[in-house]
């Protein structure tokens, strides 16, 4: 059968980087083709070329046998190629109908919008593909999973039959992921074809018809789920053997390091974000906090690390009351913090690796004496850490803005782990990182645990929480619904709790 989409020998160079190197892939009608690769492998560049955002230096694109010249997303849509971006392109204060027809409006005579006709069309589409939405509701009131449906409807509304989904599961709960995949199945049954970009191995194995792995801008291989396994795919992605399941011994827990009692924290718009939360973290254990993004985890972490003050409750750290302590005090007692947004909070991007490594200790001996920075001491220290933590950079004077996400995160880990710490708050420590870096950072975290450090792990990646934690607390709408033993629980149980369903018998 002739493929509906074919990319032949696509090459794209950026100054100093070969982003895509002779990439050829094809997509058959009615197929879900997964494009698997680490961040920076060139997946997104490739899709941006297909979508008309970049021009390839070499190579050709064929849609249904015809050569396609794309110079803008409009051309791509015209040829039936549509893309759902990782970050949605929706106007929150518009209704579903308004968003869907934005840029492709139905008009009444006189130039007024024909909302009714558009809404009918949306209902038609939603019935045909099981994409339940209410055309009149506002985007800002809809959960993320439904917003994603609106994005898909936007493409179907424009008669796209080749859909590109860029990391579509990153923002969804496990239940929403399952719903998305049943929608995808329905779409391909009715003749649509899907390219599904991801770095999650499990999803690929479960839902893809075919898998193409990309590494360093090149196609490493194309395979079928039944002919491979997760470990093999991971090795293809990274180019070396990868240990997917981190080995860890049973936790040897000690005294409580952190105790939180009835904590209440407001968010920046003065709404209650953390609602009467109590828990403790003991030395030598990892307490994982699972939950869908935006259920109070960010505010909880900011409060525990002294960046905001709670409105009620008590925080005790190593026997000291730190309820109203500032970030400096909390840090000096022995807290390390891997912040959830490494570029916003964790690094000063224009600074060198060296200067970023002293971000928490710049005023302390031996890095400073009588308020003068000791450049030589700092450089020696930085060189040592660059080597020990395997930070890939020409030298310690390289600006962190020039590093990849994985290496930026290693700079933070190097800084935080090289102090005598007793309590580690790791917030989304591996978000957006490649498999190799994830493996590395997970090992370091477990190492800290085994050294007797109390670890609070906050992650929206269920796999990560399940793998690393000894106990798991699930946060939903600012509350901790339950704390479960990581060895006894199941993905399903946690998934339901993340969606706010509290079972009677736990």
């Amino acid at each position, binding site marked *: 059968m002739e493929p509906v989409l074919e990319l032949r020998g696509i090459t794209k160079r950026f100054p100093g980087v070969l982003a895509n190197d002779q990439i050829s892939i094809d997509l058959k009608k009615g197929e879900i083709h997964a494009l698997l690769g680490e961040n920076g492998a060139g997946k997104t560049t490739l899709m941006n070329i297909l979508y008309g955002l970049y021009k390839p230096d070499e190579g050709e694109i064929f849609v249904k046998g015809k050569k396609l010249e794309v110079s803008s997303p409009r051309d791509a849509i015209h040829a039936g190629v549509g893309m759902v971006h990782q970050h949605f392109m929706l106007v929150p204060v518009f209704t579903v109908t308004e968003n869907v027809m934005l840029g492709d409006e139905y008009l009444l005579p006189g130039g007024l919008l024909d909302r009714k006709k558009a809404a009918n069309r949306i209902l038609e589409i939603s019935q045909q593909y099981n994409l339940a939405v209410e055309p009149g509701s506002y985007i800002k009131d809809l959960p993320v999973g439904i917003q994603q449906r609106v994005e898909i409807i936007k493409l179907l509304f424009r008669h796209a039959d080749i859909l590109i989904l860029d990391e579509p599961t990153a923002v969804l709960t496990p239940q929403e992921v399952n719903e998305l995949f049943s929608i995808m199945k329905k779409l391909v049954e009715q003749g649509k074809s899907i390219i599904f970009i991801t770095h999650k191995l499990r999803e690929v194995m479960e839902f893809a018809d075919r898998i193409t792995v990309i590494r360093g801008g090149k196609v490493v291989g194309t395979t079928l789920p039944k002919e491979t396994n997760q470990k093999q795919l991971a090795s293809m992605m990274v180019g070396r053997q990868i240990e997917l399941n981190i080995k860890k011994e049973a936790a040897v827990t000690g005294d409580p390091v952190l105790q939180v009692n009835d904590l209440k924290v407001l968010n920046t718009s003065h709404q209650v974000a953390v609602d009467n939360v109590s828990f403790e973290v003991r030395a030598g254990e990892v307490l994982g906090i699972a939950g869908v993004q935006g259920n109070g985890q960010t505010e909880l972490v900011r409060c525990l690390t002294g960046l905001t003050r709670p409105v009620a409750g008590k925080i005790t750290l190593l026997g000291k009351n730190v309820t109203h302590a500032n970030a400096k005090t909390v840090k000096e007692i022995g807290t390390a913090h891997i912040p959830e947004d490494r570029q916003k909070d964790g690094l000063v991007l224009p600074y060198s690796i060296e200067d970023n490594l002293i971000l928490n200790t710049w005023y302390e001996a031996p890095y400073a004496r009588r308020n003068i920075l000791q450049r030589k001491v700092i450089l020696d220290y930085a060189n040592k850490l660059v080597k020990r933590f395997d930070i890939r950079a020409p030298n310690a004077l390289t600006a962190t803005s*020039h590093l*990849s996400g994985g290496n930026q995160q290693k700079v933070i880990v190097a800084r935080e782990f090289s102090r005598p710490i007793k309590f580690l708050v790791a917030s989304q420590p591996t978000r957006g990182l490649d498999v190799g870096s994830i493996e590395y950072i997970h090992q370091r975290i477990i190492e800290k645990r085994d050294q007797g450090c109390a670890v609070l792990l906050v992650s929206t990646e269920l796999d990560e929480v399940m793998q690393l934690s000894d106990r798991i607390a699930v946060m939903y709408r600012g509350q901790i619904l339950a704390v479960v033993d990581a060895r006894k629980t199941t993905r399903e149980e946690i998934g339901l709790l993340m969606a706010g369903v509290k079972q009677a018998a736990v």
Partner: protein
Amino acid sequence: MTTSEQKQKKTGSFSIFIEEIRKNSLTVTILAIVSGLLVGGLIAAVTSENVYAAFGESFLAGIGAIFTVFWNTYKALFTGSVGVPADIIAAISSGSWDAINRSLAPFFESLVQATPYIFAGLAVALGFRVGLFNIGAEGQIFVGALATVWVATSLKGWPALVHVPLALLAGAAAGGFWGMIPGWLKAKTGAHEVINTIMMNYIAFRLSEYLLNGVLGDPNKATPISAPIEKSAWLPRLFPDPNRFHWGFFVALLMAFLVYWLLFKTTWGYELRTVGHNPNAARYAGMSITRSIVITMVLSGALAGLAGANEVLGVNHNLGVAFSSGYGFDSIALALLGNSHPLGVVLAALLFGFLRNGAIQMQLTAGIPIDIISVLQALILAFIAAPAIIRTIYRLKEPKPELETPAVETKKGK
């Protein structure tokens, strides 16, 4: 916490602008200056009646006239700001100190003109480094000058060794106080420093008019001007008349060094720069944003205050209402041109000083209006602020775009 977060949102666009400009390479800066001079010369030609008259005769004559205007303009600018080379050589070979002094006077006068620019440029640059826009340098200059003139006129019979530093300190303190007010308002209430420093300018202007018409004014004069300052408060001159070169220039260089040292060698500077680059990371590291803001505004104001003190003690020896010809505003441009780096600021201040000084000669001998220099400064700044123009004209390569795969990694992988 919310106020500080709002603060950050508001400064966001400004800070991005500064960060963008800071990425400019030295090549872009130099090309911007060259382009500014070229376009400025063209404007001088276009506004010259001779050129139109020549075009009336023939096209060739017109082109010739353009080149003549160009040549005359920049020749006058050069001789006005550096001196006449032939005269300098003649003076040196004659061996007469007086002749040498006279022939080099234009050069030293340019340094005199550059001195307040160095102080004020440092003031603005220091603010930029910490992510603050101190638009109030002009007002801080005035307040500094007022305090200086008060100390320099009211203390009598003091030795110069005490009187001069005291008068300088008074200027710095007053400027620092003037800068502290918007700094404090920003730190405590989140009020934007751009608005408040501008408002503080107006208060400073009216305050100086009020004081110069009143207690600080010279009762023997009809115009609002202070009494001449005590001779003991003069910043000593190094050469006889007409050379006005004085010690203020070296004080300015010392300040540039101190600012450099503070910013790049000390823990305080590390803290200030961190706050400037990324306030979130600074907060994460346990730094106090509010303290950094207040300290920076005080230091910035003090440097601007020194610009005013310098003019009073080194050049004018009194204070009139119109004594600053917009040094505070020019210094914003100058700090951008100097990439907010103390050394860059000194070089940019020298450029501005030479342009200003040369402009007078340009008007006298080439008949080019002095305002062309302002146009020239504006052009240079426009090119600095819009590096894309310069890159397009001279076909320079774009700085590397931030890709998902950085060059470093790919090279290692292969």
